[in-house]
Every structure is written in structure tokens, then in C-alpha cells.
């Protein structure tokens, strides 16, 4: 699951990251790293060593990248962040929420979602992370929702780059999509 996960250290831009100008420089590098990843690859932006990550920098460097991914650029590449302290992520989460985006954050041994994710999508994502993978029929059964509804939820989570959707042949013919979690941690913070 964590195969193809490359780490990008934001610390190289300084300890206190604040301006949009610097954030735009970081965004260029992050996008370049994402574009070099293989299909299914993940870029883990590590915030270790940072004292400050301002909302302006976070918006330029990370929220705008997440928005580009949501808009369909760099398909099947995934962006995650890692921080030692949750407080450092507050401004990033606020900027993501304002853009209607969500991003996985790894804090210690736990994961959480930054930004904004509706309750039903969060429920779905929790289930996929807990089980590692899901098909819409399995998810529909587990959450007592229709297969169509489950399928819609998985597509939306995929659009937000929070899960992978892998096509596979159905035993009865045709194609179905299998959702895979992009993180392996089971503990949600």
C-alpha cells in the first residue's frame, strides 16, 4: 500500500514557512515530484522540523496542488502530509476546507483528514481504511446503502484522491472498481 511513496521534506524551504511567494516555489517542486511518480504513487510531504506553516504558504504549496489533483490533473497520484504535531496543520486544514478539499495527514501513528469531508464520505473512507479495500457491493452491504450510492461515494473519494480505484473484471462479466486505501494506518486520530 505504501509502495511508491516518496517523501518530500518541506523543511528545505525554511523553518518558518509563510509567504505565498515561497509557497508557490514549493508548489512547483511538489508538482514536479508528483509528475515523476509512477501510476498509483504517493507523495508524502513531511513537515518535520517546521515551526510555522502559515495559511498563505499552505494554500499556495499544498491546497492548490490538492485542488489540481481534484480537478483531474496527474491522475492516480496521491498527496499526503505528515507532521509531528497537529497544531502545525491547523492553518492548512482551514485553507483546504475553504476550497472544499480534503487531505490525509499522518500524525505519529494516527491518521486524520484535514480540510472538509462530509459525514457520509468520512464514514465511507473510515470503512475503506479499516478494511484496506472495498467494492461498492461490499460497501453497500456494510453500510446498509444502495450499491449505486456506495459507488457514488467511492467515486467522490477517488476524485478527492483519498482512495485508489482499480478496475477489475467481474465474475459475471463487465468491469467493477475496487477501492483501495492509500494509507495502511488503522488508528484514526
Amino acid at each position, binding site marked *: 500500500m505504501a509502495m511508491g511513496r516518496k517523501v518530500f521534506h518541506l523543511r528545505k524551504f525554511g523553518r*518558518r*514557512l*509563510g*509567504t505565498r511567494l515561497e509557497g508557490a516555489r514549493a508548489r512547483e517542486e511538489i508538482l514536479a515530484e508528483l509528475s515523476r511518480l509512477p501510476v498509483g504513487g504517493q507523495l508524502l510531504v513531511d513537515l518535520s522540523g517546521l515551526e510555522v506553516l502559515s495559511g*498563505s504558504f499552505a494554500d499556495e504549496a499544498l491546497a492548490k496542488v490538492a485542488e489540481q489533483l481534484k480537478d483531474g490533473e496527474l491522475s492516480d497520484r496521491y498527496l499526503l502530509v505528515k507532521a509531528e504535531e497537529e497544531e502545525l496543520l491547523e492553518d492548512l486544514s482551514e485553507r483546504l476546507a475553504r476550497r*472544499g478539499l480534503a487531505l490525509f495527514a499522518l500524525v505519529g501513528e494516527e491518521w486524520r483528514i484535514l480540510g472538509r469531508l462530509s459525514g457520509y464520505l468520512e464514514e465511507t473512507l473510515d470503512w475503506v481504511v479499516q478494511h484496506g479495500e472495498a467494492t461498492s457491493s461490499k460497501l453497500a452491504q456494510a453500510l446498509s446503502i444502495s450499491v449505486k450510492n456506495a459507488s457514488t461515494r467511492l467515486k467522490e473519494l477517488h476524485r478527492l484522491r483519498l482512495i485508489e480505484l482499480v478496475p477489475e473484471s467481474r465474475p459475471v462479466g463487465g468491469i467493477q472498481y475496487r477501492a483501495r486505501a492509500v494509507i495502511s494506518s488503522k488508528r484514526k486520530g
Partner: protein
Amino acid sequence: MRTLDAWRLNRELPAWERSFPRPLVDLSTVEAIDPYVAVFLVLYARRCAEAGGRLRLLLPRREEVARALAGTGLFRRAGEAVWTDRPPPEGPGENSLGIVRVEDEGEVQGLVDRACEVLADRFPLGERSIRVLAMAMLELLQNIPHHANPLGEEIEPYGLAAVQEFSDHIHLVVMDKGVGLHRSLALNPRYRGLGERQALEAVLIEGASRFTDPGRGGALRRIREVVQANEGRMLVRSGGAGFWQAEVEWGVEGVHPFPGVQISVQLPRALFFG
């Protein structure tokens, strides 16, 4: 007059303005001067000079008060734009947190790093306090190149910043004499009809921005929330409106008009040992 602070300045400004561009500012009886006032006087001196006049200062009679005023970097920064009734004392030495000019976004990160390092040398800043102070500085300082003259008019915003430590608080001041929040916000059609006070409230309470991009703006609101959460004080003056926040209470009122945006943020020093 014992202490000349932002509140007192608001009351004195109409009298000073009557003799603009050659106002006489009498500091002779002042016993303490707020850094907000020191930075404001540099900005005011600049504005007077641009109008063909000169700011005239009667220095504090008490030598230690005059030295403290010089220690802010006021006279070094204002130069010939200010006249004083006697030669001002020596200015600050190296490692000072005195008044700095903010012209370009590219220099903001370096300015903030230097300020944080000077503060860290003087007393042990906790990680949280550095985060709060640096975040506020980074956002406020970059607002000057971003917002003080958004249409590239024939004006010199003349952005300035200063940080000063006191026994009970840290005081951050950032100001310019650019177009002001009201005119900047009016570039967003959604806020075009707002008055000055409403514009200030929209920026500080709602997080309104001149940009339609949802990721932009909100920095002043965020700082206000941080100030509130840490039982600090904040004052934002822009044009003819002033916003104040003291702990959980806030208000917006009319003030004597002055171009640009002038911001004062006071954070309790207890936060810096957390």
C-alpha cells in the same frame, strides 16, 4: 501626558492634522511611548514629506524616554523627514527589533526569521509562542506587498514593521499608508457597497478578501482569533475606521481618517513561556 499609545494617538491625531503637512507633535511631557506610535510617527513623517512639509517633534524632556524612542529606530528611519527640537539620542545597536521597512514579499521570511532569533536570544520562547508570533508576522508583513497598492497606483505604501518586548507582553506593529482595507476589499464585487467600518468588520470577523479565490484572504481574521484565544489585544486602523479586540470583546468605531492600514497586536508574555 503619561503614555502615548494607539488610543491616545487616535485622540491627538485630529489636532496634529490641523497643521498638516507641518504638524507639531508635542512629546515633551510623555513618559512612555508605545511602539505603535513610534512606527506611526515614521509613517506620518513620510506622509508630511511627500506633501512638501515636515513633521515637527518636541522630544520627551526625560532623557530615558527620548532614548527609548530613538531605540525604536524612529529617527534613523525617518531621517530628514522629521524635525526635532534638539538632537535625538543615539539609535539602536545591532540585534535590534527596531522599525524595519517592508517593501518586497521576498524579504518577509528573512525579516521574520531575524525577529524570532533576536527574541529567542533574549528570553526562552516556547515553540507555541514562536508559532503564534511568526505566523502573525508572516501574514501581516506579506499583506503589505499584496494589498497596500493592489492596482499599482502612483502611491508609495511605505510598509513598516516593529516588534517590541515589554515586561508583560510582546507588541507587534505593522503598518502602511497604502489604499487601505476598504478600497482593497472593494475590488471584490461582493464587498463593493460596504462602508469603511463594515469593510473592517467583514475582513476581521468574516475573513473577507479582495480575491474571489476561496483560498485567499482570512489572515487578519485568523490572527484576531489567535489573539482572542491567547487573551491578547489587537487594533486595526484603516482609513476612517478602527477595529479593536481586547480579550473576547471587540468593536468597530470611527477614527480620524489616515491612509493605509495600521495594525497593533499585543500578546501576553505568559504565552511565551508556555
